[in-house]
């Protein structure tokens, strides 16, 4: 059976100290131990991207990282990124453009898209498609997601939508 490890970390700005099973994934930890169910479990082998979240400013797969690896880390999930307002314009564009249907991939998709938008330039549609290709969406066919991300990229650079 597995051993337990003490970790102290910051999750969405809140200081957390917990004892976790060494084998527990980061996404299981935030969902089951912290009740942050906005990060979703889609494949548990790093392909679908539904568990995408930010650790120390870098997007990661919550299913491919152990909670025990996050001692001292700064973790941001969709709940924190929503409450801070960082994603507000991107979320509004997704809602307006219907760039989500069932919504299960959406927190990961938004987090991945924000990572691209934070690079600072206006990406092409092909670059947007390339960047979100680690995030599986079964509902939309991606076209609307590309539209929404593109519109926000332009808007953030002062272009009229």
């Amino acid at each position, binding site marked *: *059976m597995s051993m337990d490890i003490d970790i102290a970390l910051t999750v969405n700005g809140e200081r957390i100290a917990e004892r976790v*099973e060494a*084998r*527990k994934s980061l996404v299981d930890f935030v*969902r089951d131990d912290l009740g*942050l*169910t*906005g*990060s*979703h*479990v*889609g*494949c*548990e*082998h790093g*392909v679908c991207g*539904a568990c995408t979240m930010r650790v120390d400013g870098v997007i990661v797969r919550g299913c491919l990282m152990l909670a025990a690896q996050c001692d001292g880390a700064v973790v941001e999930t*969709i*709940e924190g990124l*929503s409450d801070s307002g960082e994603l507000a314009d991107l*979320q509004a*564009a*997704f*809602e*307006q*453009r*219907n760039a*989500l*249907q*069932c*919504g*299960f991939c*959406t*927190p990961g998709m*938004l987090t991945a898209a924000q990572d691209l938008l934070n690079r600072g330039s206006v990406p092409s*549609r*092909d670059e*947007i*498609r*390339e960047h*979100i*290709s*680690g*995030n*599986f969406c*079964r*509902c*939309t*066919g*991606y*076209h*609307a*997601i*590309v*539209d*929404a991300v*593109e*519109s926000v990229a*332009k808007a953030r650079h002062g272009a009229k*939508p």
Partner: protein
Amino acid sequence: MKITADTPPVLSVLDRPNSYIGRAVPRPNLQRLTQGRGQYISDVTLPRMAHVAYLRSPHAHARIVSIATDAAKKAPGVVAVVTGAELAKVMTPWVGVLTHLKGIKSAPQAPIAVDRACWQGEAVCAVVARTRAQAEDACELIDIVYEELPAVTNPETALDPGTPVIHESLGDNLCFERKLDVGEVDKAFANSDAVVEATFVTGRHTGVCTEGRAVVADWNASEQRMTVYHATQAPHMMQNLFAKHLALSESQVRVLTKDVGGSFGIKVHTYADEMATVALSKLLKRPVKFVADRIESFVTDIHARDHRIKAKIGVTKDGVITAFEIDDLTGIGPYSVYPRTSGIEANQVINLTGGPYNCPNYRAQARVVFQNKNVMCQYRAVGHPIAVAVTEGLVELAAAKIGMDPLEIRRRNLFADDGYPAQTASGLKLEQLSHHEALAHLDAMINYAGLRAEQKALRDKGIYRGIGFASFIEVTNPSAAFYGVGGAKITSQDGATVKLDAQGAITIHSGVTEQGQGAEAVLAQCVASSFGVSMDRVRVVTGDTDNTPYGGGTWASRAAGIGGEAAWQAGKALRGNVLAVAGAMLQAKPEDLDIRNSIVVDKTTGAERLGLDELARVAYFRPDTLPPGFQAELMVTRHYVPRAWPFAFTNGIQASYLEVDTDTGFVKLLRHWCVEDCGTIINPQLVNEQIRGGVVQGIGAALFEQCLYDERGQMLNGNMADYLVPMAVEMPDIDCGHVVSPTADSELGAKGAGEAGTAGAPACIMNAINDALRPLNAQPLTDMPFTPGKILRALGKV
């Protein structure tokens, strides 16, 4: 920026003041999902909840000699270890047959295998523990002795005398068979100038919902009541089935459906492990949760589309189609899936093949055979992608053979737009379709002549691009003809209850369910329009058998056309009731009043008379001030079921433009178009997004997706690294166009739009690839998915 404009509606009977019909209003409930605050069943936790993990058969077919559970029972956190034999005392088995599929047969299926496992992945033992991880740990301590039995894994030989019979009681491996012979097929072929034969294969694939199947069952022994939180498309159907197989009354069962992470027909069936979870809750008298992980999903979520079709078309040199003939063979699982059966898909292939074309001669045979593989059943656009691939593949091969343009051959054979009502050779009744107008619209939309010129110019440079088409018809708005007549408790009608609350806002309760397609937005649009309030005054509740009208849920593209009509009618009826109250308060004739933007107004002048908030205040808190004998009725229910037509068929045509790399066999999709006719469009943005998402699911089938099995019945690629799905980078932009032919069966006139994309896309991609490779004299590709290896073989390069 391409955010769809909020287009003003065409003036019609639906165009009341405050009309939202035809407008691209955003779905009102999306912030919950964009902020990660949705509640999927996998998020549900209840007090005392335990988790179940299933130990699954590693063999495709095996006798279970013994199960040793002592070690597992002693493992940390374990609540119970339960075998199939033990659970059979709690829940009765089921048989997936329908009486209108003549001769269909299947064997009783138990929630957990008893004595024998019939496919790799079938649950053979359950472990319930305090956490899922503990339950999985304990599964490893269970010792099962199997005696492996021969596995039936080749549909072609499933009916041979030498092949073992999976269920001895059935006598053979034939689940269902249907034959049809209409017109004079042999004579028509004999009189044809050209006959083209081909064998089409559609690969077995599956839904890959982003969220696995999920259920939390909560048997409350003190209330004798079962509450099931279930990611399902059809809550009332499941209420009936849980009750039936636990020997409860339906009133003892409540099914709640919250947010669902994708369904596409995957979540409209009875799954043994979900039934077992509900039975375990009854047995253990506490909440039990099951969420299928990805590996489990691949070997237990229904598969679909595993068909081999030998097909034949006759044409004259003028391009007139003389006859179609098909022989369809499909290998399902070891059981026909309950309650919709695994016969419907093949039945639909027979019904739909040749469907767009006015050709009276048609012969078809379909055989559905049992296999020791995961079960097969209805998945988005049931049977359509297969029938469309066969039909449209044949039509383009025939066009090539007689040297005719692929759009021209369609123009010469599609049912005439002014020729309705019409009937297909297979007997489908068509109310009003628009094949020719849709084709003309597509022709212009894609700049067909320009595209052909570009294709030709690039060929001279050694770049091989293809243009492919697929015309199609789609079954939507199903009446009782689909399941009800076959004895299944699957209702085709649906209901909506509309209530004016004490502050003058509206709540809708509907029997259809939200799976992300936007049903709740459509319901709100319908009621806001027919009643007369703005969208922000409407709240929608779905997915609760205790609180919504009895309804069918979401399947066969029915939510907008059937659920929407019920909501529209309920809103109208409530308006009448509210105006009666207003008339009493204002001493006016109700017929002289109307409701606009939440205010009762004078119908002719539009002058404001009374706010709904004030009306509600009086009706609820000062009814003593209303005239004696007058009773305000501020909650009404209306139901709707299609009666005039068994199904509201829609139609459309898709086009694909792609490039084949003839050195690597890779296909690059450049653009995709779809023009469809779903009748009245309630929300153009939602229709377009249904089309786009559906097209991409169809593209997956054409290029990537296949559940690969070896001869021992082992699935070889049951994970997302090996089973490929469409990701953003491979997908094209998709343009949508519309023709509007409303159904006269309902006042709204809306038909379904959920499956058109998936129906046509595989055929379209296939035809485009073959068009690209035609100048290279490649063998026509008809075996999906069209992987690079198959393309290089067709080119003779490997």
